[in-house]
């Protein structure tokens, strides 16, 4: 059985704490070596003390790592094995991992561009751009591999990044961390720390700043902690106004709701419709029911699969919330397909994020304004009404606005995802230099050794 162990500045650490993970049919598929809080603290301390590496060398290593991630055997794992194991372990259709191969490579190739895009225009001269800390802890999600395209930017910005993977997907960050080390990144810049629940808290305590991906509860838990940037449920939405012929836009709706299995924060969970909401709900449901029922590693799989007990729990949660009966489709190997559901337009229960394609179709009238569109990670506006678009752009709780037929799941590594990460990771500083005008006594000052944390980043 393949094993993933903690990876630190000194390479792979064979931990005595082990956990066996099972695939969606309950078969053991992966052994995880765990880093308890004491090991987390020790590795983070070693990361802080590790040698630095120039910005240019880090960027080059990141670019090479992206290519290795997409094309090479990493720790003896081929790209195909990665995709297959990811699908079997997480239940997310294999197309998600296949897409991650290219998405990680593209994000890595374009890292220089992405960092430059995040750099404030006024930086230069007496304005320097500096990190807010040295070590970033990432409590990573397991719903989809794509969030792992985000944190390498922190390495480009000079952070040392320690990732605690989800037990649903330790594969993606393990492959990426290993690829970064193989590509020549100084190993102190990047660590993988699989661990028990309390090790996540230990990582956030040991790091200077944290990224936390998680549920609404997780968001609430970290609310108000200025050291933590939380990535919670997306509540992504689509608005269709009356003058748009939605029949022609069903592909965008299906991709937004169910793309890659519908497990991303970018997947739409609400479609607001001006006019024929019933007709749209029916047409969308018709398209979604035609998605095939297949095991997750099948190349044509589009819908997520869960182990039977998990599928039962998910179904119960959904039914408890909506009072709508829902039965996962048994696959015959102790796993079940979570088929898409269209809720509404007359349901009273508000939309919730489920780990399968699940969308609320809700009537919208012009007099409702943009209030129902607030708190939306990605919003697609299928409308010709310029005033609505302008209002959404001004609305601070909508970080992404797509106007026209772009799926909510559209991803570009250079564009901000819920704001630029540098808005959290970096700050600007005034740095004037009139040292040449200092009166001196003539005695030599001692040479200063050590890495400067105030070095400007991004050239």
């Amino acid at each position: 059985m393949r094993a993933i162990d903690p990876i630190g500045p000194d390479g792979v650490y064979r931990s005595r704490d082990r956990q066996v993970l099972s695939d969606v049919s309950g078969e053991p598929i992966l052994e995880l070596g765990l880093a308890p809080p004491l090991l987390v603290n020790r590795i983070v301390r070693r990361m802080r003390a590790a040698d630095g590496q120039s910005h240019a060398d880090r960027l080059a290593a990141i670019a090479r790592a992206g290519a290795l991630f997409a094309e090479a055997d990493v720790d003896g794992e081929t790209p195909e094995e990665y995709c297959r194991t990811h699908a079997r372990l997480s239940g997310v259709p294999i197309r998600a991992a296949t897409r991650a191969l290219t998405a990680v490579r593209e994000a890595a190739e374009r890292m220089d561009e992405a960092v430059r895009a995040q750099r404030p225009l006024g930086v230069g001269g007496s304005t320097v751009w500096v990190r807010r800390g040295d070590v970033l802890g990432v409590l990573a999600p397991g719903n989809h591999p794509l969030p792992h395209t985000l944190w390498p930017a922190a390495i480009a910005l000079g952070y040392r990044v320690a990732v605690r993977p989800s037990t649903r997907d330790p594969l993606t960050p393990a492959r990426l961390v290993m690829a970064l080390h193989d590509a020549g990144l100084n190993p102190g810049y990047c660590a993988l720390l699989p661990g028990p629940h309390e090790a996540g808290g230990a990582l956030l305590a040991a790091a200077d700043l944290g990224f936390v991906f998680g549920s609404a509860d997780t968001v609430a838990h970290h609310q108000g902690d200025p050291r933590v940037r939380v990535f919670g449920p997306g509540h992504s939405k689509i608005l269709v106004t009356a003058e748009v012929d939605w029949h022609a836009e069903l592909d965008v709706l299906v991709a937004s709701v169910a793309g890659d299995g519908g497990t991303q924060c970018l997947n739409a969970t609400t479609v607001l419709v001006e006019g024929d909401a019933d007709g749209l709900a029916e047409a969308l449901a018709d398209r979604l029911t035609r998605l095939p029922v297949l095991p997750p590693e099948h190349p044509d799989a589009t819908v997520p699969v869960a182990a039977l007990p998990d599928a039962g729990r998910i179904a119960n949660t959904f039914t408890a919330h909506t009072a709508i009966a829902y039965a996962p489709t048994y696959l015959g190997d102790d796993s079940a397909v979570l088929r898409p559901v269209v809720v509404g337009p007359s349901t009273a229960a508000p939309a919730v994020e489920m780990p399968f394609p699940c969308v609320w179709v809700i009537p919208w009238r012009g007099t409702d304004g943009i209030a129902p569109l607030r708190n939306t990670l990605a919003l697609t506006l299928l409308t010709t009404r310029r005033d609505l678009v302008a209002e959404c752009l001004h609305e601070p709780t909508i970080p992404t606005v797509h106007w026209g037929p772009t799926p909510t799941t559209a991803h570009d590594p250079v564009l901000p995802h819920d704001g630029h990460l540098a808005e959290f990771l970096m700050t600007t500083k005034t740095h004037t230099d009139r040292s040449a005008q200092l009166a001196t006594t003539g005695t030599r000052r001692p040479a200063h050794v050590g890495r400067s944390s105030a070095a400007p980043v991004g050239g």
Partner: protein
Amino acid sequence: MPPSSPEDALRAPFDALPDVDTMVRAAVRWHFDPRTGSPFWQDLARSLPFDPVADVAGAADLVRFPDVGDHLRTVPVRDLVPKGFGASAVPLVFESGGTTGAPKRIVELGFWRRTAHWIDRCLDEHGVPRAGPWLYLGPTGPHVAGYAFGTVAALRGGPFCTVDFDPRWVKRNPRQIVAYLDYVLEQAEWALRTQRIAVLWATPPLLVALADRPDLVDLVSSTVDTIVWSGVAASAETLHLLDHEVFPDVRLVGVYGNTVMGAAPQRPGEGCVFEPFSPHSVIEVVDPDGRAVPYGERGRVRVHHMSADMFLPNMVERDLATRCPPSRPGGPDGLSDVTSAVCSDGVLAQGVY
């Protein structure tokens, strides 16, 4: 030849302890005899579908008793005192749990003092020096560990330095855990700097926090001979790092246990295997159907407590452990790699104690 009275078994000297079945019969005779038993068991006995004195022959019968843990949350402590101790007996009272919901109470009439004598012996077997000062970084008050280890230190001639440590407050305020551990360590530092502490008692989370303070690690390494750790489980990797990387020159001795069950110190020798104070405490590692798992396998921890003070059979703990064979013929099973059972939401819930 059976002992003449239950007390002979319940109070047997350590070098003449009876076997478990004899202890079970003695405990049942003591606690279910109207002249010696507690009002608590007298009352409960009426609802049992069997006659404990006539029908309970040994350890295998203990599972016929109900888990009375929930009753311990509400029963007046006087009702827990066996009549055999006399009408004037006044117990000490200790509690288990209490972070969320009502705590379980037990009475101490001598069993924990007896346990302290036994731990004293075990520490000798580990080669722990006598007479050195102790620093106890653990809970006191309603928590029996403070009383038990304070007694152990006194038996060994060691002055007993303590700090105030409230595990319930920390469990209730998990976001304050780092600050709380800092606060405890700050107090520990004064004792470590001035008292030439020989034995340090701490919980694993506290040792992990201490390990992140190089100045304190140096201080402990230069003065402390033995670290006794207890309170919550420590993973195999955590123990390995503490033993070999953080405190390579300090002896580590773990003590598993709780208020209800008693204490199970680590056996001397390689690896961390806990062994209960047999035959007063019986620890079983069982499968979901309640049957003992084979040696080397993992299962849920089930405990039985039999002393003159209390009779607490058939209590299923929240811990998982690996069942280990006895260290000597006729000795009790050991257990290793204790972890907290996974909660329903799939995450491990633990505190600092």
